[in-house]
């Protein structure tokens, strides 16, 4: 197998394929709903109507906003903390050995346990909710950034040293840009993980947001609303990827051939 030839060329054809794939999914859903004829599997059209109703008359936008704020807060907190710890562990051998055990411990604590403990110890507060979400993501960021720091090209740092550009410039112009690919990897997988955990946190201990509403709909057995809310959030997260993460990534790696 020739790997070079196997890597696909992008073109209009691939865009069409994506549209077709999406339509196929809708079709599959509609057909299943038609044969099931059940309240627990509404068809796409019913969900669209409920979605519109929540958007205009309900609190969908408000809940979406609240959840999005929590996602952003937890994301920023996790990325900053994880990046700082990851870089330090990558640079300092002793610190790495000291914290490595903790890291493995935190990587293996189930999300649910962190959430319950945060609520029990810090109360059912906003701070506890955001801390719980961040704690689930931080170990991942640490591992990725530690790997990135270890892979930093020392030859380029020597250039900074010889030309005596100073600590600030060495860090921001010579060191940090080498970590961008790793930061992007952590950010991409971070967003996906965080928004899923935020919903669980809201379900367990908040009185607003998408996660809270989903628990209400669950108790009412309102499947159409659950699907409508899910759809809304997925759309928002795809928009975030397309509008922010994609362009930032392309800008940061524009120098590649």
């Amino acid at each position: 197998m020739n790997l070079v030839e196997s890597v696909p060329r992008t073109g209009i054809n691939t865009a069409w394929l994506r549209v077709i794939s999406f339509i196929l999914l809708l079709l599959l859903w509609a057909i299943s709903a038609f044969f099931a004829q059940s309240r627990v599997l509404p068809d796409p059209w019913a969900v669209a109507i409920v979605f519109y109703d929540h958007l205009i008359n309900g609190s969908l936008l408000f809940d979406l906003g609240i959840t999005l704020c929590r996602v952003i807060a937890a994301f920023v907190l996790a990325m900053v903390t994880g990046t700082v710890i990851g870089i330090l562990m990558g640079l300092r051998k002793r610190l790495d050995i000291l914290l490595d055990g903790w890291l493995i411990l935190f990587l293996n604590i189930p999300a649910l346990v962190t959430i319950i403990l945060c609520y029990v110890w810090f109360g059912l507060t906003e701070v506890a909710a955001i801390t719980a979400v961040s704690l689930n993501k931080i170990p991942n960021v640490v591992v990725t950034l530690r790997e990135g720091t270890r892979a930093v090209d020392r030859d380029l740092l020597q250039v900074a040293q010889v030309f005596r550009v100073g600590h600030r410039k060495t860090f921001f112009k010579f060191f940090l840009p080498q970590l961008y690919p790793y930061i992007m990897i952590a950010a991409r997988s971070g967003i996906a993980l965080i928004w899923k955990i935020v919903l669980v946190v809201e379900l367990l201990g908040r009185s607003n947001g998408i996660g809270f509403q989903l628990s209400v709909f669950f108790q009412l057995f309102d499947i159409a609303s659950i699907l409508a809310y899910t759809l809304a959030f997925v759309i928002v997260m795809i928009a975030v990827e397309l509008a922010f993460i994609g362009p930032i990534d392309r800008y940061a790696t524009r120098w590649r051939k």
Partner: protein
Amino acid sequence: MSSAALDIRIDRKAYPTSSGGDVRVAIKNLKLSVSDGEFLCIVGPSGCGKTTLLNIVAGIDGDASGAVIPKTGQTLDSIRVSYMFQTPRLLPWMTVRENVRVVLDETTAANGRAEQLLERMELADSFNEFPNRLSSGMQRRVSLARAFATEPQLLLLDEPFVSLDQPVGNILRQLLLELWQTRPTTIIFVTHDLREAIYLSDRIVFLSRGPSQVILEKSVDLARPREIEDPAIDRFRHKLLSQHESLLHGMATPQSDIRNENDGTA
């Protein structure tokens, strides 16, 4: 003070071997001095510790015993040092222009010195290119522009043209000489190519095989400007090699052969 004069004395520099335990001594009892504005070439067999020597002078190898002392009473830290490495070592995420500006402070960068030097290197059309898209000859030019941009008092070059083909390398050698003549600086240039050393330098210092020591110093008394194809360079080379047969293998006169062997067994 436009350039620097140095006394270099390295008592011992050793690397741990990969098998562990034992160490490999790269440099031992090496003494060398370079005067103000001089173009000094260091020639030695590959693996004899030439790069290590430059790294020690540049201050990026702090693990050697010895001293590098400026003759003018300055401290080594106050001398502006530039280094052109064996590979261009450009930052791939920065454009050509940014790569030169990044080593300058804000006021010098604002004066347009980076742009001036790049134009001198005939890179005016490539200011906003990324290094990955340049040929290796062009990358060396950017690296050379960067090295001169800080107006160094001491410029270190580590076989900078070694992987280039002859014509491209010769253009760069000529550029280096032109820059050195318009912006005087002390140069230490490491190479294993004797012709290159004769063409470029005022004085050549020959090093032995590791642990390296100075085995011969030779002034190059050819008039400047020199032509690369000048037969005088070949005559100089021939004469030198007929006097010291194994010079390029790290051995000079019979006396220093003996001295060398003694050290080799240590």
